[in-house]
Each structure stands twice: as C-alpha cells, then as structure tokens.
C-alpha cells in the first residue's frame, strides 16, 4: 500500500516571522499509528492540515503514493476535536454521510453505518442526534464516520483533547481496538504525553520556533496493550513513566533553547 509522506515541507503563515513548519519530513506507512506530540505552536496542527490538504506547503511536498496532495480528498478522513458532526442529521446519517456523497444506495450505506457504529461501541445511538450525545459519544461518531467511508488514512486532530480524563482513557483503548480491527493507518496529534506514548507505534516529538521534529521513537506500549496487558498496568509501568519524564525533559530543554535564541 501507498505511503503518505511529507518531504521537507515548510509552511510560513503571513504576518509571522518564524515559519510554522521548517523542512519537516515524515512517512506514514500502511500499518502505522503515528502520533505527533508537542506543545502548542510546534506545528503539529499544520502538519496534519498538510496531510489533509487543507494547507499547501510553501516548500517541499506532500505525497500520497504516487500522487501529490493538492487538496482534501475522500482517501484521507479527518476526525476533529469538536464541531464537525452535522446536527441536522441523526447519528446513522452522519456516519453514512460520506457514502451518501459518493452516491452509495441508502440501504447499503445505512447497513455500513450500523456496522461501524457497533465497532465503536455505539450500536444503540443510530437514531439520536449529535447534540443529544456526550462528548465521548460524539467523538465515537466522528471516528465511525471517518471509518465508514473508504478512506485509507485517519487523520485525528487532538480528538480526545476536550474530554475528561476518564472518558479520554476509554477512548484511547477504543481507538487501539478500532485501529486493529479496521486496519486503517492513523496519524494523530496531541499535546498529552501519556496519550502519545500509549497509542503510538511511531512517535514524533515536535518543538516550536520554528516548528520541527526533534525526536522520533517507537515506544511499543500499544503493542503490549494489544497483547492483552491493561491500560493502567502499562501507564504505571516504570519504563512508561521513565520515558514520559524523558520526553517531558526534552520538550522543556527545547523550549529553553528557543527562549534563549529569542532573547
């Protein structure tokens, strides 16, 4: 399968003296769950927007397989933090929306919607409306909608950032289950270190001023979760905690350097 890749991409927003992204390269392979982790301003949202096609690079290029990414497309579905479901459609119709746009017959697309809603543990919610759901349920619908269409990549823009800690952990476990069953590559951005460590097969650490990748690692904790270990056991494992502190220290180091350069 094709690789989604950014090759030396740079983005500079008008009116800002430092580029939002500077010569960033990243490949997302077919079986990856890649997480970009960093504080605000590190360019992770810009990177996601480049992959989605919402933003065009000022330098470098984004490719999906052979084709250059020049705009949003149905092969790359995005899950937003909030505000992206259509409140005038019920949950089933929201999930089936992408298929409707592609002209899939009603019975077929609704059957597909029900199937995906079962996958995200929301089998009963089909006839409800997004504004009647909790934040966690809404995000499940968002994930279901992205899965229902035949996209090859899920781009997730801080999908659990607005949820409370308990719901967030549930959603992380759900995401790993979905990722495994739906066999869809995922690129997720977050500023939550634990979330990044727990989910990522590949973790890219980003730092601001200018936005860039400062470290890439393969934590391997999500494989342990898939092998049957519990989320709490993994997150309280000394190896997990040590890595968490190390990443935090790296981020603080980079911030200090950036501030010294600025001063």
């Amino acid at each position, binding site marked *: 399968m094709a690789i989604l890749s950014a090759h030396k991409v740079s983005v500079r927003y008008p009116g800002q003296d430092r580029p939002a992204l500077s010569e960033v390269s990243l490949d997302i392979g077919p079986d990856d769950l890649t997480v970009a982790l960093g504080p605000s301003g590190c360019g992770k949202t810009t990177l996601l927007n480049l992959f*989605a*096609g*919402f933003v065009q690079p000022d330098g470098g290029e984004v490719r999906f397989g052979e084709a250059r990414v020049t*705009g*949003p*497309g*149905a092969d*790359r*579905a*995005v899950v*937003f933090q*909030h*505000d*992206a*479901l*259509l*409140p*005038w459609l019920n949950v089933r119709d929201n999930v089936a*929306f*992408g298929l409707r*746009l*592609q002209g899939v017959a009603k019975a077929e697309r609704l059957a597909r919607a029900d199937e995906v809603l079962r996958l995200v543990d929301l089998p009963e919610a089909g006839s409800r*409306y*997004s*504004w009647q759901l909790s934040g966690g349920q809404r995000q499940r619908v968002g994930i279901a*909608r992205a899965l229902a*269409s035949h*996209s090859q990549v899920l*781009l997730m823009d801080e999908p659990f950032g607005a949820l409370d800690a308990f719901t967030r952990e549930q959603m992380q476990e759900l995401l790993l289950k979905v990722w495994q069953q739906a066999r869809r590559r995922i690129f997720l951005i977050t500023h939550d270190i634990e979330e990044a460590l727990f989910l990522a097969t590949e973790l890219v650490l980003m730092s601001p001023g200018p936005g860039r990748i400062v470290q890439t690692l393969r934590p391997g904790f999500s494989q342990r979760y898939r092998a049957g270990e519990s989320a709490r056991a993994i997150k309280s494992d000394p190896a997990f905690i040590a890595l968490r502190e190390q990443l935090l220290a790296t981020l603080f180091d980079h911030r200090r350097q950036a501030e010294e350069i600025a001063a």
Partner: protein
Amino acid sequence: MNALEHTLEQKLADVAISKPVPDELPASSRAPRNNWWQPYRRGWLSLISLLAVLGGWWGLSHSGIVPPLFLPAPEAVLAKLVTVSTQGFMDATLWQHLAASLQRIVLALLAAVLLGIPLGVLMGVSPVARGLLDPLIEAYRPVPPLAYLPLIVIWFGIGELSKVLLIFLAVLAPVIIATSHGVAQVSRNRLRAAQTLGASRSQLLWFVILPEALPEILTGIRIGLGTGWSTLVAAELVAATRGLGFMVQSAAQFLVTDVVILGIAVIAVIAFALELGLRLLQRRLAPWHGQLD
C-alpha cells in the same frame, strides 16, 4: 427573542440549582409548587395582562366617560366582526379583505425568498459579492418604506405591482442579511469534514452550508415578515379597493371606529400567527438551534 429569554432563564435556573438549598427553609417551599401554576407561569401571566386590558376597555366604554365614537364597547366590536365577515364592509367581506392582504404578503415573501436566499448565499461565500451588494442593501434598508412609496408609485403606478413591490423590499433586506450572516458563520470544521468525505462544491452548499444557515435564514424571514406586514397598511393606502389596511383606512374616514378597531385586531392576530408559525417551523426544522456547544 423568546427562545433567548427562555434559555437565559434556564441558565440562571441552572446556576441557582448548583447552590445548596439553605437548611432553614421549610420543607414545603423546597417541594415543587402547585403544578397548575409553575409550569405554565408565563401563559398565566400573559392571560392576566390580556384580561386586564380587556377589562379596562370594557369598563371605560361602559362608564359613559368616553363616547362610543371614540371607544366602542368590546361586544360592539365583536358584533361588528359578525356583520363584516358576513355582509362585508366597502363592498368586500372581512375574508375578502384578509385574502387580498395575505395574497400580497405571500407573493412578496415568495419573491423575497427566491431572490434573497441566493443573493445572501452569494454574499456569504464571496467577498466580491459582499463588497458589491452590501452598500446597496445598507443604503435602502434603514429607509422607512413609506418614504420611498411615492417613488414606487411614480415608477410602477398604483396597481398591485406597487403594493407587492413595497412589501417585497421590506422583506428582502432582512432575508439577505440573515442568509449571508448564517452562511458566513458556517463552522469551518464541518466544511472541512465534509470535504474530506469527498464533498464537491455544490454538495457543500446543499448538504452543509444551507442546512447550517437555515435557522438564521428562518430568523431573517421572521423579521422580514414582521416588517412586511406592518408595511402592508402603508401599501394598501395606495388606491386599494381590498385589503385589511384599506379597510381600516376607509373606516377611519367614515368614523366607523368599531371597524377600525376590528381591522387593527385582525392585523395583530395575523401578525402574531405569522410569528408563531415561523417559530414553530424553526423549532421543527432546526431543533438543534441553540443546543450546540
């Protein structure tokens, strides 16, 4: 407006609930109050104020202080309702006057919606269209329709066209402004989500932009209808032979005060019904309005 008040009241109530109830309150005051009053409090209060006005009117007209020429009794107006709706006034029954007025406003509304929504969408999505159209709309919108009525008469004569045109202009501006506002406010995330699901530009318009702008558009129509209906009386002063405005106007010339009051009451009832109908429509078509975070 009403929905806003309502949610504000609810929001304040939510705050109140989060405070602990003081212990010294007697148990009875903490229990829910009589269920014939509390849930319908607003309705009862409205009824009380309406009855007070009616009672005052009745008392005043029966006291002999005010002669019936100035203030006919309520029952006289009610009796007139029967005569006017069966025998008519100025060669037409009440229903014919009503039908004439409703026909004008419906025609004007249809034209305003058919022209106003596309123009509003255009202004909402295109800065060029906004730049071109905005000054025109803002220039004529604040002018009272009565002020440009004479010009319309000079240009289009005193036929039906002038009357419908005047109401149309009154409805058009709020529809365009509300539509463009609603379209410009469509959530970027929803647009982007639809794009990544493969939506074309026209699909974005039909499946995302228009549904999301719908509550605003309906608000614009509601405001426009209010303005349009009040412009109606003015429009029907222009040599009409039918219509509620004409009926009131000619009754006033002959000092038939009970018909004047009757006409005003019917105009008020229709205005209220239009407002209520559109609110219901809005709640029906856009139940999510005001529920989003």
